[in-house]
C-alpha cells in the first residue's frame, strides 16, 4: 500500500498549517446575536508516516471540526493541508484522489451506514465509484469482512439493523479500508461501544495498522484509550493546540497546566487514593466568545497578567514535545518562566 508513497519516510504524511474555521451565528429578528464560533483557530501540526496521532480535548475544543477539515468535508476559512508533499485540492492532488488515500470512521456506527445497502454493497460502493469493476469490488468487500472478523458467508448479505454496534463499527472500518487508504481518521470510533467490545475493536485497529501500513489520527475523549493507542498526542483547548508530544512523555511529564488538569481528572481506580480535589473548577468556556490571550487563563491556577494579555505560541519544551504556555517561554513576563538568555536589542 506504499506504492503511492511520494516523499519518502521523513516527509510527514500530513502537514497542517494555520488551519482556521469559524462558524458565523445567525442574527435573530431583532438583530441580536450574530457572533462567531471559533471552532478551529489557527492550528499547526504534522502527522508522520506510520504513526498514530491521538487528539484529545473536551467538547467544543475543535477536535471533530479538525477531523472534518482534514477530510475536506467542510472548507477551511484559512490554512492549508498538505498530504505527502502535495496540497490537498491542488492540481497535483485533487479531492477525489485525496479521498482515495484518506478515510474516516465516525462515532455513530448506525448513522454511518446506508440502511438500504447490505454490508457487502456498502463496502463495495466506494471502490466502484473510484473505477473498480463490480465483481472485483464485491470480492474485495468479502475479503475485508473476513479481515475485520465478520464471516462473509454470514454477514455479507445483512443490513445494518441486523448487526450489533460492535459489528457495525467493524463494517465501517472495513469500508474505510476498501479504497486502500494510507491515512484513517478515527473520530470517537470506539466511544459508543461497550468496554468488552471496545477492546476487541482496538485490537483490530492495531492489527490492521500493522498489516496495511496505515497511519491513524485517533480522536477520543477517553484518555486511557488514547494513551494506549497513540505514538504522539495532541491536546486541544478551545480551537487551539495546547500541547503536542510523544505519548509517554506527555502522559508522564505534561508541560501545559491544562494537560496536567486533564490527566489528573482521570478517575484513580484505587479506592484508597481517590481524587480529593477537582483539578479544575467550572466548565470549558464557550468557543463563541473565547477568553483573550491564552484561552486557558480563566481556569488556570498559574495565570498572571501576561496570560490574559497575549496568546502564547506553540514552542518546543523538550525533545519532541511542544507547548503553548507563557511559563515555558524565556522572558515572557510570567514569574515561572525561565530567565531570558539574552534580551532582544
Amino acid at each position, binding site marked *: 500500500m506504499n506504492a503511492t508513497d511520494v516523499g519518502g519516510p521523513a516527509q510527514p504524511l500530513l502537514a497542517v498549517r494555520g488551519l482556521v474555521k469559524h462558524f458565523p451565528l445567525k442574527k435573530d429578528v431583532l438583530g441580536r446575536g450574530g457572533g462567531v464560533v471559533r471552532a478551529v483557530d489557527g492550528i499547526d501540526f504534522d502527522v508522520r508516516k506510520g504513526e498514530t496521532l491521538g487528539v484529545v480535548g*473536551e*467538547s467544543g475544543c475543535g477536535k471533530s471540526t479538525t477531523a472534518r477539515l482534514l477530510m475536506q468535508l467542510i472548507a477551511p476559512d484559512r490554512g492549508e493541508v498538505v498530504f505527502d508533499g502535495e496540497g490537498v485540492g491542488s492540481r497535483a492532488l485533487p479531492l477525489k484522489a485525496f479521498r482515495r488515500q484518506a478515510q474516516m470512521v465516525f462515532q455513530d456506527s448506525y448513522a454511518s451506514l446506508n440502511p438500504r445497502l447490505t454490508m457487502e454493497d456498502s463496502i463495495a460502493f466506494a471502490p466502484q465509484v473510484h473505477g473498480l469493476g463490480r465483481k472485483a469490488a464485491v470480492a474485495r468487500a468479502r475479503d475485508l469482512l473476513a479481515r475485520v472478523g465478520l464471516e462473509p458467508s454470514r454477514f455479507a448479505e445483512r443490513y445494518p439493523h441486523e448487526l*450489533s454496534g*460492535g*459489528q457495525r463499527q467493524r463494517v465501517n472500518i472495513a469500508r474505510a479500508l476498501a479504497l486502500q487508504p494510507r491515512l484513517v481518521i478515527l473520530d470517537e470510533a470506539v466511544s459508543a461501544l*461497550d*468496554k*468488552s*467490545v*471496545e*477492546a*476487541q475493536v*482496538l*485490537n483490530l485497529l*492495531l*492489527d490492521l495498522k500493522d498489516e496495511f501500513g496505515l497511519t491513524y489520527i485517533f480522536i477520543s*475523549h*477517553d*484518555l*486511557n*484509550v488514547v*494513551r*494506549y*493507542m497513540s*505514538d504522539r498526542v495532541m491536546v486541544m483547548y478551545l480551537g487551539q493546540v495546547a500541547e503536542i508530544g510523544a*505519548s*509517554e512523555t506527555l*502522559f508522564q511529564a505534561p508541560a501545559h497546566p491544562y494537560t496536567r*488538569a*486533564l490527566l489528573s*481528572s*482521570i*478517575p*484513580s*481506580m*484505587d*479506592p*484508597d487514593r*481517590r*481524587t*480529593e*480535589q*477537582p*483539578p*479544575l*473548577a*467550572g*466548565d*470549558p468556556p*464557550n468557543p463563541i466568545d473565547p477568553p483573550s490571550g491564552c484561552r486557558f487563563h480563566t481556569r488556570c491556577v498559574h495565570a498572571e497578567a501576561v496570560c490574559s494579555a497575549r496568546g502564547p505560541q506553540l514552542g518546543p519544551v523538550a525533545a519532541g514535545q511542544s507547548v503553548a504556555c507563557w511559563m515555558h517561554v524565556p522572558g515572557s513576563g510570567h514569574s515561572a518562566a525561565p530567565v531570558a538568555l539574552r534580551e532582544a536589542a
Partner: protein
Amino acid sequence: MSGTDTPYVDIRGLRVTFGDGRKQVRAVNGVDLQVQRGEAVALIGESGSGKSVTLRSLLRLHPPKRTKIEGAIRVGDTDVLGLAPGPLAAFRGKVAAMIFQEPLLAMDPVYPVGAQIVEAIRRHEPVTQAEAHARALQLFERVRIPSPERRLQAYPHEMSGGMRQRAMIALALACRPQLLLADEPTTALDATVQIQILLLLRELQRELGLSVIFVTHDIGAAVEVADRIAVMYAGRIVEEGPAATLIRAPRHPYTLALLRSRADGALAKGTRLQTIPGAPPDLSALPAGCAFAERCGLALPICRDTQPGSVRPVAGHAVRCLRTDATAPILDGATP
C-alpha cells in the same frame, strides 16, 4: 449486607420483563441488593445488563402496561411495588429522588430551573413560595453554582452541561430525600467536569448521610464514589463486594475480564488488549445456565445447564459462579 441492622433499601428477587405476548425481553432476572443507610453502592455493567432498569424500578418509572415487575422492593418501611398511585407520587422525590444522565431532557425546557425546584418543594411540603425560593437558593449554594440567585432564573438551555447537572442534583435534593438514585450522572460530561460532579456527589452523600445507588458503565467513576460495587450481566448481579475487593481481587470471570480489557496505560505499547470474545446474550432468549458461559474461558458443561448459586470468598463478597476455584490462582499470578 453483613451488618445486623436492617438495610434501608432491600431488593429481593427482582424480575423485570418488557413486552407483549409475542416477544418478552427479560431485562432483570432475579436481582437481590441491599443498601444500608448512608451507604453508596455502584451498579456497573454494559448496555443491556439491566442496571438502569433495576434503578428505575425503585421509582417504578417503567410503563406499567408493557412491564411486568416481580419480587419485592422495600425502601425504609415502604413496600414500593405495592404503592397506590397517590402514595407513589408522594414517595418519588420525597423519599427517593433520581438524577438522570441528560438533565436537558429531564428538566422542563419552558420554566426557569428555580421555578422547577420551588414547584417540587411545594408539591411535597406545605411551605410558602418565599420559603421554597429561599430553600432553592440554599440548594444552589450547596451544589456550588456560582451567582446562585441569578442562575435560579435561568432556563435549562442557558446553562452549561456541568452547571445543569449541578442544578439537577439540587432539584433531586429539594425535598430532602434519604435515597439518591443516579443514572449515569457524569457520562455525558467532559473529563474535567465529570470529576467535579463525582466529588460533589461523594461530599453530599457523606454530609447528608444519603443512601446512594449509582449506575455507571465506568468502573473508574464507580470507584470514586461507591463503598460497594455490584457488577451486572444479563440482568443479574454476578459479583458484589467492597470497592477495594472488586478492583483488587475480583473472582467472577466476567469482572476479571472486564478489568483486564481496560486500556489503562499500564500496558506496554504494541501489546494487544485481553478481550472478551463474542457479545452479551439476547435478553429475549436467555440460556438456562450462566449467561456468561458462552464467552467464558473457564466454562464447564455444567455452567451452561445450571444457574450458579452465590459463593462468598470472604464476608461481604458474593460471586455467582461455579468456577471461583479456578479464578483465585489466575488472580494471584496476574495482579500487579
